[in-house]
C-alpha cells in the first residue's frame, strides 16, 4: 500500500547516515519549517478561492473566473497585489505592537500545524499531550487580535478586539469540553492514539448520540473561535467596518487574512481527527473485505477529504446565517452550549465506564 510514512522514513534514515546527528537534526528542522510554510501558503490560497467559489455558488453567482482556468489563480493575483501594496501605519498607533500583532497571529496558526497528522506517519510532532497543546495554543491567537485592536489606536479596532476577546475566551470552554468527550473515550491525549482507536469505526459512529452532540458543539465552538460568521463580531463588517484589522493594509492585512483561513483549516483538521478518524479510512468493525477495499484509498486523501468537508460546512454556515449580537453570543455560550456540553461530558463518561460504545 502506498504510504507517505515510508518516504519520511527514507529521508530520515538517509540524513542520519550521511551527516552527523546534530547537523541531521538541523536539516530536518529546516525541511519541516519549509514544508510548514509551504502548507501555510498553499492552504491560504486554496481556502480563499474555495470560500469565494462556495459563496458564489450559494449566491447564484459564478465567482472568480477570469484569472487562469476557472479563476484558479485569482488568489495568487490578489496576494501579489497585497504584497505590492503599501503597508500603512496610523500616525498615533503603537508602532511596535501594531507591526508585531499580525506575525503573532500567524505564528500561533503555524504552531498549531505541528501536532496534526496529515496522513499515516506524516506528523510534524507527535506530542503525548497533543490535545492539550492544541487547546492551549489556539487560545493564544486572541492575544494577537487584542494587540492589533489596541495598537491601531482606532475605536472600531478596539471594540472588535474586545468582542473577540470575550468571544474566544468563552467559546474555548465548550470547545474544550467537546474535545474532552473523545479524550474520555480513548483515554489518551496523544493524537496518534486517538486516530488508532478509530481503527474499527470513527467515534461519531461508535459513540452514539452524545458524541454526535459533542461534534455539533465542537463545530459551533470552532466557528466562534475562528471568528467566522455567524460569530464574526470581531470583524462585523456592517457594524465595525472591519473590526480589529480596520487599520491594517498590504501584507500585514494579508497575514491576518491568511491566519484566519489557516485557523479554519486547523480546527477542521482537529474536528476530523477527533470525530471522523483523521487519516483513518472508513472502517466498519467486522467487515474485513470492505475495510481492505477502503484501505486502497490513500490515507492523506481521507484526511483532506474529511477536513474539507468540515471547512465546507463552516463556509455554508457563513453564507446562510445572519450575525448574532454580542450579548446573544455570550448568552448562547453560557446558557446553552456550556450546560449541554457539561451534561454531555457526564453522559460520555458513563458510557466510557460502562463500555457501552462499540
Amino acid at each position, binding site marked *: 500500500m502506498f504510504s507517505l510514512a515510508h518516504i519520511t522514513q527514507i529521508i530520515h534514515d538517509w540524513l542520519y547516515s550521511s551527516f552527523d546527528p546534530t547537523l541531521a537534526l538541523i536539516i530536518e528542522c529546516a525541511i519541516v519549517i519549509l514544508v510548514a510554510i509551504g502548507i501555510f501558503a498553499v492552504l491560504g490560497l486554496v481556502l480563499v478561492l474555495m470560500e469565494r467559489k462556495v459563496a458564489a455558488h450559494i449566491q447564484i453567482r459564478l465567482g472568480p473566473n477570469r484569472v487562469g482556468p476557472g479563476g484558479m489563480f485569482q488568489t495568487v493575483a490578489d496576494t501579489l497585489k497585497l504584497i505590492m501594496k503599501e503597508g500603512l501605519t496610523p500616525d498615533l498607533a503603537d508602532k511596535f505592537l501594531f507591526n508585531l500583532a499580525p506575525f503573532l497571529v500567524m505564528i500561533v496558526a503555524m504552531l498549531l500545524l505541528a501536532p496534526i497528522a496529515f496522513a499515516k506517519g506524516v506528523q510534524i510532532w507527535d506530542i503525548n499531550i497533543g490535545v492539550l497543546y492544541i487547546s492551549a495554543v489556539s487560545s493564544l491567537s486572541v492575544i494577537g487580535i487584542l494587540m492589533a485592536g489596541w495598537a491601531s489606536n482606532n475605536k472600531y479596532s478596539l471594540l472588535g478586539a474586545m468582542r473577540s476577546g470575550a468571544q474566544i475566551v468563552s467559546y474555548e470552554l465548550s470547545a474544550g469540553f467537546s474535545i474532552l468527550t473523545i479524550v474520555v473515550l480513548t483515554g489518551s491525549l496523544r493524537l496518534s492514539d486517538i486516530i488508532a482507536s478509530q481503527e474499527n469505526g470513527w467515534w461519531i459512529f461508535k459513540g452514539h448520540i452524545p458524541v454526535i452532540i459533542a461534534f455539533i458543539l465542537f463545530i459551533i465552538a470552532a466557528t466562534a473561535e475562528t471568528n467566522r460568521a455567524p460569530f464574526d463580531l470581531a470583524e462585523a463588517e456592517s457594524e465595525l467596518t472591519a473590526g480589529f484589522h480596520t487599520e491594517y493594509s498590504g501584507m500585514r492585512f494579508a497575514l491576518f487574512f491568511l491566519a484566519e483561513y489557516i485557523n479554519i483549516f486547523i480546527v477542521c483538521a482537529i474536528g476530523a481527527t477527533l470525530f471522523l478518524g483523521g487519516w483513518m479510512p472508513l472502517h466498519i468493525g467486522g467487515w474485513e473485505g470492505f475495510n481492505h477495499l477502503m484501505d486502497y484509498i490513500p490515507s492523506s486523501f481521507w484526511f483532506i477529504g474529511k477536513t474539507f468537508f468540515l471547512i465546507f460546512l463552516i463556509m455554508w454556515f457563513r453564507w446562510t446565517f445572519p450575525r448574532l*449580537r*454580542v450579548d446573544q453570543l455570550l448568552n448562547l455560550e453560557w446558557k446553552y452550549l456550556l450546560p449541554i456540553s457539561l451534561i454531555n461530558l457526564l453522559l460520555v463518561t458513563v458510557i466510557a465506564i460502562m463500555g457501552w460504545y462499540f
Partner: protein
Amino acid sequence: MYTQTEIIKDTTQLNSNGNEGELVINVGPQHPATHGVLHLVITLNGETIKKIEPHLGYIHRSIEKMCESLTYRQFIYVTSRMDYLSAHINNLACALCVEKGMQIEVPERAQVIRILMSELTRIASHELWVGAMAMDLGAFTPFFYTFREREVINDIMEQTCGARLTMNYMVPGGTMYDLHPDFQNRVKAFIIQFTSKVTELEDLIANNIIFQNRTKGVGVLSAEDAISYGCTGPVARGSGVSCDIRKIQPYSGYEKVSFEEVLEPAGDSYARYLIRIREMYQSISIIEQLIDNIPEGDFQAKTKAVLKLPKGEFYTRVETARGELGVYIVSEGGTTPYRIKFRSPGFSNLSALNHMVKGSKIGDLMATMGTLDLVIPDIDR
C-alpha cells in the same frame, strides 16, 4: 489651525470631561451600514449607545433650488434622483401636483398604468430593502436572491419606460409612452416567479432564530412617538399608525382597487420587516386586479406645449415605498415654479433613530437603521 495630534488630544479631553468611559464614534460618512453618505456621531458607553446625532448634507444637491429654474415639464426628471429606489412614485407626485394646478384630466388608461408602475416600483424597492437589511445583519446571501427578482422588474421597466432606475416615465397629463405590447405577459410571469420565490425569504430570514433574536423587541417605536416624530410609511405602520396615503387620500385611481393597509402593532424591527413583506403581497394583489383590466384609450391627455401653472400654492402627497412624499409648489403664474418644497419620508423617519436605539447595543443600531429603509439622497435632496 490644529495639527492632527492636537485634534485627537482634544477629542479625548472632550470624552473624559465629566463623562467617564464615554467613546465617540463616527459612523460614516463612509460606512458599510449607512448605505450612502450618512454621518452618525455615536456616543458609546462600552457597547451601549448613549446618543446618536445624525449629520446630514453630504449629498445635498439642492434639487429644490434647481427645480426653480426648470419648467414644469423639465423638473420631473430631477426628482428621480431624490429617492432613486422609488423614482417612479416621485415622478408621479410631481406630475400629480402639476396636473392639480393645471386642472388636467388624466385619461383612465394612464391612471391605471401609473398605479401598475407605482406598485412594481414598490415591490422592487422592498425587495432591495430586504436584501440590504439582511446584509446589515450579516447575512449576505438573501441580497442576491432578492436582487434576482428585482432585476425582473427592472427589465420590465426598461422595456416600457426605456430606463431601469431613473425612468422619467411620468409627464404632466399621463405617461410618456404607451405600455409595451409585451408588458402584461411579462408582469404575469413576474407574479408567478415572485410568489414562488418570496417564501425563500421566510426560510432564510423571517423564520431564522438568529434574525428573530436580532430584530424582535429591538428599536421599539411606540405609536405616539411615531406620530410625534412625523414617521410615515412602513415605519409608522409597524407601530400601528394608519397612515397609508393610498387609503386616506386616494390619488390616481387608488380608490378603485381593493387592497388592505398592512398594520403591525409591535413597533419593533421585526414588525417593520413583516410590514414590508406583507406590503409586497398587497402590491401583487393590486397588480393582479389591474393587469387584465387596463382600459383602452389615450395614455396621455392633450396638453399645451408650454405649461403655465396659475398663481397660487399647490400640494399633493403620495405614498412612496418609504412613506409620505409631499410636493409643494408655489407658482407666480410663470413657466417655472417660484418655489418647490419636497416633504421627504426619510428625513422624518431618520429623526426617530436616536429615540429608538438609545440604550441598546451597536448591533441593534444596524438592525434598527436597516428597518428605517433610509435612502440618503432622499433625506438630503
